């Protein structure tokens, strides 16, 4: 039924004022949403459960006497609460999300459907392996694809995220050195541009960290590396393509001198997206590399995880890989879950069970969808898109490394903002008002006021153009002295700029009932 138009105005009133304050403080459909604990109550619930047949008298004083302090919601209230909250988030599904080094690409929904098949989602990790042959076959196929794409002979699937994969790789290296009587090697070389997880992981396994200098063109300084490669060095950790978005041209030489000094080459594979299907890390002399399935292979980032960080390993390190792994035997596929017998050199276990199966299914569905040809195109389009952004934005902004192409991300510094009074942070916040998530800011640390833009291959040219035009307009506005546009930004987001200093000075990390008005725990 169409709406009756007789007597009803069908055009906005031209005389209506433009600025407006609501009476309730709300902003149209975008409401301030209270906390669960302010909305719900201790007696309210959104589930209907049967009455138990036994009480818990047998547990005596082991039973909790005091209230827990939870709040409940009925189902409609819960749906509304979390849907309202969701609307305060930016997401890849809404617009380009150019967080450099995070690879925010499209997440195919087929992968979600596949991961929810009961044969994968409703499978217990410890049920007999005769009842999980399909799951083990999927792990085996995923391992085959990862090994083929990287040109490496072995893979440990169990690490749960990139940093966990780094830890796995360094533990393999440590075990290999100890087995070879080289346990005195306890130093790791890390470029100044490295992601913070690299030095943190090295320290985690008890290694000390020495930084390697960077050349003026954004690569590892070979002379400095060679000078620091003493016989106490266990490994180098180099990201390639590196965090400046550049391929390490001397990578084969880096590997050669590292091996010549008895150290291993750990490659941070966070940026594998740029070379997948075109370059095999195994051909570059890499000994261990983690692959973020949530980056290159499109498993959703989920507001900060879960990720998955399988580690591919060279022949020299393969024997030290942690349990578990899949083997083929007379009774089908089996899991080796203990570091014994043939597997005695395995360094231990990274976590309970067998890794992020839900992510394995999604990543495998993504690989199968792309195939060998599509994955190669992924790398090409990712690099093409980044270079296109670099070329267009260089009209107004200063690329950190103007000479030569970049790989999958374009890095700018803040030279072009000099004298405008606008900082990288201000510029990023103003991007929010234009409808885009800001790029990675102030990283890598080696570039002043860094802005690292990674578009990924799943952006159309139209979206790239929309993005470039918005940034060019903003850049012109900054140079024209329109500092207010930036200093107060964002103006049009669900929230204005937040006070991080206050949050850290007196941390308030949980909701507590105000005295006398305890709602959840009364």
């Amino acid at each position: 039924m169409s709406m009756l138009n007789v007597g009803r105005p069908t055009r906005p009133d031209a005389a209506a004022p433009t600025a407006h304050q609501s009476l309730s403080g709300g902003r149209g459909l975008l409401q301030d949403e209270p906390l669960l604990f302010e909305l719900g109550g201790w007696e309210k619930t959104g589930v209907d459960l049967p009455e138990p047949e036994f009480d818990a008298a047998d547990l005596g004083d082991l039973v909790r006497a005091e209230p827990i302090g939870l709040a409940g919601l009925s189902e409609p209230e819960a749906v509304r609460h979390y849907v309202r909250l969701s609307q305060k988030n930016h997401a890849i599904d809404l617009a380009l999300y150019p967080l450099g080094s995070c690879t925010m690409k499209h997440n195919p929904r087929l992968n979600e459907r596949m991961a929810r098949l009961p044969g994968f989602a409703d499978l217990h990790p410890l049920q007999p392996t005769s009842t999980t042959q399909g799951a083990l076959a999927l792990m085996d196929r995923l391992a085959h694809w990862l090994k083929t794409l990287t040109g490496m002979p072995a893979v440990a699937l169990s690490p749960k995220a990139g940093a966990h994969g780094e830890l796995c790789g360094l533990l393999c290296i440590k075990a290999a050195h100890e087995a070879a009587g080289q346990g005195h090697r306890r130093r790791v070389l890390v470029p100044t541009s490295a992601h913070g997880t690299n030095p943190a992981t090295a320290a985690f396994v008890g290694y000390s960290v020495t930084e390697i200098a960077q050349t003026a063109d954004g690569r590892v300084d070979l002379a400095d590396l060679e000078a620091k490669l003493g016989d106490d060095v266990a490994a180098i950790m180099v990201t390639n393509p590196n965090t400046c978005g550049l391929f390490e041209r001397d990578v084969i030489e880096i590997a050669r001198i590292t091996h010549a000094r008895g150290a291993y080459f750990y490659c941070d594979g966070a940026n594998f997206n740029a070379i997948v299907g075109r370059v095999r890390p195994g051909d570059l002399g890499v000994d261990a590399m983690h692959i973020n399935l949530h980056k290159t292979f499109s498993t959703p980032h989920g507001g900060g995880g879960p990720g998955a960080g399988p580690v591919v390993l060279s022949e020299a390190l393969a024997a030290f890989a942690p349990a578990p792994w899949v083997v083929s035997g007379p009774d089908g596929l089996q899991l080796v879950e203990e570091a014994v017998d043939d597997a005695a050199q395995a360094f231990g276990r990274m976590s309970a069970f067998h890794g992020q199966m839900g992510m394995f299914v999604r990543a495998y569905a993504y690989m199968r969808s792309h195939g060998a040809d599509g994955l190669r195109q992924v790398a090409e389009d990712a690099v093409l898109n980044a270079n296109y952004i670099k070329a267009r934005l260089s009209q107004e902004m200063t690329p950190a490394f103007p000479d030569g192409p970049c790989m999958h991300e374009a890095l700018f510094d803040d030279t072009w903002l000099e004298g405008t009074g606008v900082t990288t942070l201000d510029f990023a916040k103003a991007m929010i008002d234009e409808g885009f998530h800001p790029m990675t800011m102030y990283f890598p640390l080696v570039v002043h006021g860094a802005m690292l833009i990674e578009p990924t291959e799943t952006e159309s040219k139209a979206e790239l153009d929309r993005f470039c035009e918005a940034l060019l307009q903003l850049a012109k506005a900054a140079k024209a002295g329109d500092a207010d546009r930036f200093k107060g930004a964002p103006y049009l987001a669900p929230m204005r700029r937040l006070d991080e200093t206050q949050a850290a000075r007196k941390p308030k990390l949980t909701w507590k009932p105000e005295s006398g008005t305890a709602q959840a725990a009364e």
Partner: protein
Amino acid sequence: MRYLPLTPSDRAEMLGVIGAPTVDALFADVPAAARKADLFDLPLHAGELEVERELTALSALNRPAGAGPFFCGAGAYKHHVPATVDHIIQRSEFLTSYTPYQPEIAQGTLQVLFEFQTQVAALTGLDVANASMYDGSTATAEAVMMAQRVTRREKAILSGGLHPHYAATTQTIAHAEGMEIVRLQAQVDAEAAVIEAIDGDTACVVVQTPNVFGVVTDVSRIAEAAHAKGALLIVVTTEAVSYGLLKSPGAMGADIAVAEGQSIGNGLNFGGPYVGLFAAREKLVRQMPGRLCGETVDAEGRRGYVLTLSTREQHIRREKATSNICTNSGLCALAFTIHLSLLGETGLKQLAALNHSRARELKQALAGVAGLEVLTPRFFNEIAVRVPGSATALVEACLADGVVAGVPYARLDPHAGLDDVLLLAATETTTSEDIAALVGALNAKIAR
């Protein structure tokens, strides 16, 4: 290819803007020897239907937990997850966002994390909780390393009732950092032996309740003994639903509580992704690993949330960080928080009571099976039994009757000499018919 929007003419036009003759020219920095001209030896791209066909065929080779009587627990539990949970976590704004680095456009995720932290602190009876770890096992290893930082001591004592995978994970990770890990003998009532092992060099003791054999323990005495020697007590829980019935770790004197949160909101998923819970006393907050979400205000004075105390973290502190963790378990934490908000105080208590009730029915039924000995004196929803002969062989035999009878302890730890111990869990999903089928299968296989 359906996920790639660029057309050949787009690519040509873009190369023109860049000023590069070909896409190959953009890869000029890659050494020629490493540039692969040919496609890799893998299948070519496939349509949605083809991929769905292959994966559906693989999944059909597996026997889902819900396909019949099923009694596996031992760190992962089959629970019913309300439909609402999976619906909301698939909303684009939650599923396809990342770590809330820009709080102005990530308040949805941040407020959920604040609610999650509040729920975890309440469940564990402690003051503060972080925004999640990968899972319970890695959270345990992180807790042990945190105890080292707090006490500046190097020794950790792991109870013999700790899940063997958790012990192995802790041994692997904490040992690599230079700690001495003392793992006590695996036994059903393992907690008494812990007190004797504590000495003046002990940084922490790690005790699980309910433990891997299902035993529920009041750890207050262990807390007193640990504190008397200047050590911390870390309490581990692998079944988060038990918080709805049992005394909280905080109330029993724990300094740090860690748990596997899978049971609330998350499916079995063959072992992952899961969500690690991590809570501690307030005075220890600056030594905690992982992300923390805190309350603040925006420029207009409105309440909002940000990631805070990040000077503990790797992206600021690099090699001096409290942990190397970066990505955590955001979406699994969201599922946990939604499910727990649906349960509420009342629902969680009901659910926990129901689980305990189903396990009591299971225990009574097992006590009637000739040849079985129930080993667990006090339990929540999981019990250990001694079977005649190999538990592994018995489980395999029961499969013929369509029953997955539980987890042989030897699957977790083949060296403990407990080949005849079987672990069985019952939850709200377990029916009386399931239990009858189990008893029938056990009677038939044991008698034979």
